């Protein structure tokens, strides 16, 4: 039963992605989590499937679908591996930034390989001073002739150690009001002065590599500048708000569905006091709550993304969807562990991973409290 009317093409996409996930990702989902490894060969295969550039027009090597289809993709991957979905989601951020703000030459240079699975993308905004505090940027870019010299450090960057093409924001001056003016640059792996640093050991969303990017006297040509000089705050806000947050919501919907399906399966199979757990009213309450959260999260997420696909701004709806789904996923995972009793705490079962993954979705793309600032700001305006 579907609660949202997807069109036939979208339904076919969901079925075909599900088949791919069940055959290619499910067998290695536990290994991805336990070893915190990013499966590069699988990522290349996903590029051939059209997943890596699903929302990119065909002329740039993409599949030519939209953001709703991207959400279906992320939800299906996240149902079994939220960590891998996170890596794909972040790759899409780099792709979207180049697609939305790049010159024709930049799009033709980078997008075909990023879509085909030959290269991995990333977006590096967050610094030790904070992620959502763009005005606190400490990394700098200095223009020398036609070239730029960049310095600074980025942290909590997903795909930091695997990305071939990173979109990086740095401070390049001040605007008329004295506020930092940010500029964006496309930096390729191997560029001298640009290298991954410390790798974080996360407890959730493992398989998406996260760490520092060190920028030390990194020389790039003027052709690396993404968008207009001093206007990269828009790149960061638009990409994170319009692509990142709905992406995190879609990942959380995948976790919510995992909690619902796992709790139903366990409740039907586990016999206690001579009857299946599913017959116990307290267990039914958990199942009901898991379903309510899944369906509500799904509605909010696909509504926000549907708005984006019409070309309208969806920042507020995306913030609402991210707020609701990430927090709900934590509660649903906790309830699923409750339902499973001791089994819920055993790593042979995936419920513990759902909780760790759900917790890790909260700061990604802005914490719950930042979402509340966005939502309240829009409501009070």
């Amino acid at each position, binding site marked *: 039963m579907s609660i949202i009317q997807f069109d*036939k*093409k979208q339904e*076919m*996409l969901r*079925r*075909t992605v599900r*088949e*791919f996930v069940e055959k290619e990702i499910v067998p290695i989902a536990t290994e991805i989590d336990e070893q915190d490894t990013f499966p590069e060969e699988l990522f290349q295969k996903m590029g*051939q*499937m*059209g*997943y890596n550039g*699903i929302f990119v027009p*065909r002329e740039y090597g993409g*599949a*030519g*679908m939209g953001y709703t*289809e991207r959400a279906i993709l992320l939800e299906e991957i996240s149902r079994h591996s939220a960590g891998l979905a996170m890596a794909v989601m972040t790759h899409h951020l780099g792709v979207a930034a180049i697609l939305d703000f790049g010159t024709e030459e930049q799009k033709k240079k980078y997008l075909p390989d990023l879509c085909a699975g030959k290269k991995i993308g990333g977006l590096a905004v967050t610094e030790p001073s904070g992620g959502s505090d763009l005005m606190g940027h400490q990394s700098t870019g200095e223009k020398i002739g036609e070239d730029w010299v960049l310095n600074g450090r980025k942290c909590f960057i997903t795909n930091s150690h695997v990305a071939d093409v990173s979109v990086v924001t740095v401070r390049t001056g001040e605007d008329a009001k004295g506020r930092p003016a940010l500029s964006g640059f496309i930096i390729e792996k191997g560029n001298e002065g640009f290298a991954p640093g410390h790798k974080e050991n996360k407890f959730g969303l493992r398989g998406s590599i996260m760490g520092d990017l060190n920028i030390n006297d990194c020389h790039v040509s003027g052709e690396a500048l993404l968008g207009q000089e001093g206007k990269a705050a828009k790149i960061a806000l638009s990409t994170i708000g319009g692509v990142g947050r709905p992406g995190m919501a879609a990942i959380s919907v995948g976790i919510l569905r995992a909690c619902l399906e796992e709790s139903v399966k366990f409740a039907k199979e586990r016999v206690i006091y001579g009857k299946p757990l599913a017959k116990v009213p307290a267990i039914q309450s958990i199942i009901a709550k898991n379903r309510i959260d899944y369906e509500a999260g799904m509605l909010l997420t696909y509504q926000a993304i549907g708005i984006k696909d019409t070309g309208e701004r969806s920042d507020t709806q995306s913030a609402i969807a991210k707020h609701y789904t990430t927090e709900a996923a934590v509660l649903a995972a906790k309830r699923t562990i409750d339902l499973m009793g001791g089994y819920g705490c055993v790593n042979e079962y995936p419920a513990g991973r759902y909780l760790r993954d759900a917790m890790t979705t909260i700061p990604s793309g802005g914490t719950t409290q930042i979402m509340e600032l966005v939502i309240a700001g829009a409501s009070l305006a």
Partner: protein
Amino acid sequence: MKERRILVCIKPVPDPEHYDKIGIDPASKTLVRSGIPAVINPNDKNAIEAALEIREYWGGIVELVSMAPPDAEEKLREGLAMGADKAYLLSDRSFAGSDTLATARVLAAGIAKIGSFDLVITGSESADGGTTNVSPQLGEMLGLPHVCNVESITPQNEEQWQLNVKIEEGYLKVEGPTPMVVGVNDKINTPRYTTVMGIMEAEDKEVVIWSAADLEIDNDKVGLTGSPTQPGDLHEPKLQRAGKLLEGEPEVVVDKLIRLLRQAGVLNA
């Protein structure tokens, strides 16, 4: 090199993952499939894959043919998304209830209307009926050589196919002329995944829909009236499980267990 025109017969079947929800209507003695999603018969995906591989090597076109209700167009689009070029849906209210013979008759009429071709590939077996009848019946009706349970198809030259056929305890090498009807089994290949690009391209591919009138086929040759197979009485087996606790020392329990298994006919007496 001669390009090949390959026709692939496909059938929508209830998703095998939902077989536990399938029931039997005691009045009509037919399967109750309502609420169960349909999928392309898994073995027919092997047939599509075999055709696509031949096309990739030799060039040509791959066209799908299916006798099914109008909503099966969606399943044909899935086959087109895998990479087939065009599809024909043979759909008419009078086709409902066709057994394998009547089904083969409709498919043969559709294929005759399509015209010339080099090869017809079918799955050897459907996941729902499982009769393995349609492929050979189709070959007979088209007056063409036909082989089932095929595990490899190689164009030997412009006029000849070489087939590897699985038989009990071995294989049979068969050579046959163009055109012919080949039923492939699920060992022949692993069907490819459908790409997102394939889904997008399938939208613009043509699905031709033909009715009984288009096929100029008599109503009494199809559907229930045209089907010699009539199910007799149907009995739904009642599956009951009952636990039996064997107690005592291990040796005693094992003796009891062996005795019970012999009584049940599981072990030889």
